[in-house]
């Protein structure tokens, strides 16, 4: 390699690539299942909501309850859609950012931590949408969101954001000190 050649891209560890690809696979399977089992999923969710009337604040008056059920079903469906979209996107983000980290970070603990945070955070975050969706029928809209937030979105999202800031700082540093 001559002095003017750019540095070659380095692949991140294989397990990182596997996680990224698996995230995309799950997104595709999730999207296809959503379309294939749309009616079954809606029926199950509606049945589970009707089995927990107090959780959803159902009052037994059709004109009042139908709007509550409709909103919960729309959010249930939105959760599945958002899982599909985020898992697809984050799979690519994991692969791309881990490759940048593997290329620019010097071998050592810092590189391993950045790649681990990017991979775990990036692949874990979309699962929050599945958790949210799955909990809506039994826990209600607000409780399901709170559980998904504290169990998945905040820890995994924070891990990914910290790693991305770290990587951004590192990339800036490499511009000054190649």
């Amino acid at each position: 390699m001559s002095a003017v050649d750019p540095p070659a891209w380095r692949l991140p560890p294989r397990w990182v690539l596997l996680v990224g690809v698996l995230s995309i696979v799950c997104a595709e399977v999730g999207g296809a299942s959503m379309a294939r089992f749309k009616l079954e999923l809606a029926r199950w969710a509606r049945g589970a909501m009707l089995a927990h009337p107090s959780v959803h604040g159902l009052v037994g008056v059709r004109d009042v309850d139908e709007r509550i059920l409709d909103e919960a079903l729309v959010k249930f469906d939105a959760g599945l859609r958002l899982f599909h979209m985020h898992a697809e996107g984050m799979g690519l983000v994991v692969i791309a950012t881990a490759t940048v980290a593997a290329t620019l970070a010097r071998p050592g603990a810092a590189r391993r931590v950045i790649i681990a945070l990017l991979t775990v955070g990036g692949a874990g975050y979309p699962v929050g949408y599945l958790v949210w969706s799955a909990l809506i029928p039994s826990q209600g809209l607000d409780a399901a969101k709170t559980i998904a937030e504290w169990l998945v979105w905040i820890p995994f999202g924070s891990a990914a954001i910290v790693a991305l800031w770290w990587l951004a700082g590192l990339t800036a540093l490499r511009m000054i000190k190649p």
Partner: protein
Amino acid sequence: MTKIACVGRVLATIIFATINPAAAHHVGSYVPRDNAVTTNFKQVKFSVQAKKFDVALQLFEGGALRAEMRAKAATLPPGLEDGTRAALKASDGAEVERRLMLFFAALARDLAREADRHLADAAAEARAATGRKFLEAIWRYYNLVDFAVSVRDNKTSVAVRLAFDEAETYVKPTAAAASVDASRLRQPFQRIANVLSTLVEASSTQARRDS
């Protein structure tokens, strides 16, 4: 600034810049949709406005509006379904509008009565939420005919709107709403029920006298 304070500030900034975006995930938004009855009402109304009475009659005969009129016949003014059909056949747009106004006013009245019953039994912490849900349901029907009501009986329209506004202030999701007592919250619902009841009865009596 000491080194510890400096590190502390940097850490606080990192946490702020991390937790805030992580907690602000996108969860979609919900826009309430029309139900079968309000959808059919709009279809019939727009057909009548376009003077397509044959289309409006078809939509009425096969739609949710007529099915709901039959299902709630016991609480509606007598002959409402037949009268609406006759008005459509006679291409009488004003009478169709009046009949449909009566129908939705009666639906809103029944919901206000139901709300009053529910609020009497509701637990204190659930009272505001229950009231809010009933208000949404009442408004979904009443707002379809508010203009028709105001043209025929402006006082009723104003009274319903004032009662509605008052109820809305009680059911807002605030600390004050949580402590609102049942009798105070029930009053605007009772007023809505009474005012709409008077409107429905007066209009039905008028219709019988005219026929």
